[in-house]
């Protein structure tokens, strides 16, 4: 049975810092970057995959992730899943993709994502994000914040505005 060794939200997805720290740290042997928009853009997918020198990687939409996961082809792979956004992680969760914990790593701030929940300013969320995280936490997913392995994981404790 394939195993999710890490589910992380990181807007940079397949990125030098993710590949060079979390891959060895988790001993993952395949990396899936999940974003519905990026998946539609072959050129962006190619750029992303080009960054992962030490691991097989794929860029998938949420639906494709679930299709591949349910296909049984992953056998006993150790899978590192990087979602581009909380929204993508939430969509996967709602469609039945199972993960025990969700690590919040890096989020691109925008006009809606302005609520800072960590002290490194790497994680800014919107009111909608807070609702989605709350629902996942209520389903016993351990949501925590950790920028990179050298930092201590910090429990996500923001439940309401």
């Amino acid at each position: 049975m394939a195993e999710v060794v890490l589910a992380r939200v990181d807007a940079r997805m397949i990125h030098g810092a993710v590949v060079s720290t979390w891959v060895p740290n988790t001993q993952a042997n395949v990396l899936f970057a999940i974003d519905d928009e990026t998946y539609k853009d072959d050129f962006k997918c190619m750029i992303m995959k080009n960054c992962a020198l030490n691991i097989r990687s794929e860029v998938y939409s949420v639906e494709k992730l679930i299709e591949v996961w349910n296909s049984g082809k992953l056998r006993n792979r150790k899978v590192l899943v990087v979602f581009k956004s909380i929204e993508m992680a939430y969509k996967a969760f709602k469609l039945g993709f199972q993960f025990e914990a969700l690590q919040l790593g890096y989020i691109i701030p925008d006009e809606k994502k302005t609520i800072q929940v960590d002290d490194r300013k790497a994680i800014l969320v919107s009111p909608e994000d807070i609702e989605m995280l709350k629902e996942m936490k209520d389903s016993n997913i351990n949501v925590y914040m950790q920028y990179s392995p050298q930092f201590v994981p910090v429990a996500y404790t923001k439940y309401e505005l």
Partner: protein
Amino acid sequence: MVGFLLLSHGDLSKGILSTCDCIIGIPEKTKTITLAIEDNISQFETQIKEAIDELDDGDGVLVMVDVLGGTPCNQCSALLKEKKIELLTGMNFPMIVAAYECRMQGNDLQTIKNYCVKWAKEGIVSVREKLHLESL
């Protein structure tokens, strides 16, 4: 004239220019952009675009970044289809010196890029091996 754009996590690109200042002087038509953890990636992309547009007088821009797969590299990769740029990873001092020398001789972007790749690699030398000294 080909422009130079140096992109890095932290101050590497600024530091390389400071080293240039000691040895060959600061090359003209050269810009640096640095990225800190708290910076917004989407603003970084805009900064890169603006710097390229400023530097490109029609001859194009050679972009040098610290590492393959990092944000500076990834953000700039996305511009390869729309901007007249060449993008090199593994920026080091020999690379900058090569770019400077090659441009001074009036070469075009492709020639400068190829020259930079060669000299950036050749600039990495184990001195002990080169001197045929046994390790202690």
